[in-house]
């Protein structure tokens, strides 16, 4: 099977009180693809990721990861997923190397492996910076370290929640190059962003707005089908379509 669906999301819904943060969305993620999850602030991106990773209780609907039910088999699923949360989720008082040791340690890596990873990151970032507290280093490097830590147990599926927010354009490009490398290594990647110009980097995109999916498909096909020049225009049209309906 060429397009094996590694994640299947079916009628997924999240209610906070009477408010639908995510409203009956269904989509699949194929093995080895980069899926871009686009939407403005408050669209429901984080909520969706958190439900898929088992961090938030699902109100209704189902999620299957490699055929495993998130509601029941989250323990097994954890073994092959990586997650980078919206705020990078590193310990500000620890250095990069210490953060790496910590995250490696709690994911059960043996000491030797951790040492190897620590060695590996010194090829990308100068040791001097790696020995500074996270709170003292620039966001671009924080982002690199955060990505690195989430890759440590070598997951097959990677969830990145707004990995490029607060990062300058050059670092953003570098970051996407790394994502491509991961794809080449066979990983499946879900990236959220509210930056529409990042859509082109993804194999497929899903545009989410007010908890509903309003478009999905390959970026170039979507643009062509609707006769649009830019993602921005496409997005505006999608929103107006959605609101007039």
């Amino acid at each position: 099977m060429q397009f094996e669906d590694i994640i299947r999301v079916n009628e997924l819904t999240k209610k906070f009180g009477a408010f639908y943060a995510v409203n009956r969305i269904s989509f699949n993620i194929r093995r080895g693809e980069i899926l871009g999850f686009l939407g403005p602030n408050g669209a429901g991106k984080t909520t969706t990721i958190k439900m898929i990773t088992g961090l938030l209780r699902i109100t209704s609907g189902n999620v299957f990861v490699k055929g495993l039910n998130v509601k029941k088999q989250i323990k097994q699923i954890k073994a092959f997923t990586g997650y980078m949360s919206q705020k990078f989720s590193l310990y500000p008082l620890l250095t990069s190397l210490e953060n790496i040791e910590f995250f490696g340690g709690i994911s059960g890596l043996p000491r030797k492996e951790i040492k190897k990873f620590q060695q590996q990151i010194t090829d990308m970032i100068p040791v001097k910076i790696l020995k500074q507290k996270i709170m003292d280093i620039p966001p671009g490097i924080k982002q690199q370290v955060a990505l690195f830590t989430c890759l440590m147990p070598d997951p097959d599926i990677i969830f990145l929640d707004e990995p490029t927010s607060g990062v300058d354009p050059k670092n953003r490009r570098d970051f996407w190059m790394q994502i491509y490398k991961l794809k080449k290594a066979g990983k499946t990647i879900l990236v959220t962003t509210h930056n529409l110009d990042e859509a082109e980097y993804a194999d497929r995109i899903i545009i989410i707005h007010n908890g509903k999916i309003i478009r999905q498909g390959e970026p170039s096909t979507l643009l062509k089908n609707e006769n649009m020049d830019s993602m921005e225009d496409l997005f505006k049209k999608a929103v107006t379509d959605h609101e007039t309906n």
Partner: protein
Amino acid sequence: MRIFYLLKKELIEIFRQKEMLVIMFIAPILQTIILGYVVTTDVNNIPVEVINLSKNKAAYRIANRINRSDLFDVKKITNQPGDHLKTLKQGKAKSIIILRDRYDKKRKPLAYPEIQILMDGIDSNTSVIAAGYFNGIARQFILEDMRKKGFELPVESQTLIRFNPNLKSINYMGPGIVALLLTIISMFLTSITLVREKEQQTMDTLLISRLTPVEIYLGKSLPMALLGLIEMGIGILVVILVFGIPLRGSLLYLFLASVIFLFAILSYALLISTLCSSQQQALFFSWFSMVTFLLLAGLFTPVENIPKGLHWIADINPLQYLIKIIREIFLKGNGIEYFYKDLLILGAITVTVLTLSLLNFKRLVSK
């Protein structure tokens, strides 16, 4: 061994925060000393005015005894009547002793004067104690005087006070203050650092890792318990060295009780942090619970004085048991056979609260 990394991280975080270190290690020493001196129910140096309107010798001698006593700070001795209410209102004295002549039916002055004690009752505790002192002095004087004249009282009770013979309140308060410190530190720090993880979203990473909620709890509580015990050690040293309170029982039992207590209080901290989503909330909640625990712990007032309706809070209050045990070990030198029941209750509290908060923990992180 995953837990080892949690412990290491926690300790690094604590030791990299200078303010935290000050709070953890300097504050307890200062607090023990300050509280030790201030939180005392001993009453001395009560400001007093003595108004002696009597001409008889006994009255003069009683006034003299009051003047000489350390318990009172005699501001004024006079034989002029004055405006007593005004004196009390101005706060110049907390009590006024008035000695007057007493007469028999034939208008002949009696041997002993009439003694009237006027008290400022705002600080009720002090007033009652001070009144007791006055009566004691007067009674003592009269007894001695009568003996000299060859009279004997038919019955006299004798009191023998054990464990704290001088009734020094620091002996009673000191060990309690140590328990109090242990509560403040462990409760505040644990709930705050747990909630901070939520704010930083590192909690998400912990939860998505293969760590179990129990491991996360232990990873937080063990370092805090360790620090708590160090604090406790400092507190005990201060109490023994600065205040000279005797430690009559075994240090080992003290340690055992503290460990069990720490896990009880840390479970409460976990419960609080599952209920809060910001550090401010956590701070408020722990402050509130701490004050409640503190007031209903038998530290300042005996547990028996707590109104019936609030007894259940005292019953689930770990601090109450620790304070009781600590006092027994310090002053009575009691062994475990005297307080094993309290330890069991502490254990039961820990298990219950911990179960509750772990259930809540799972539910709350995956709302």
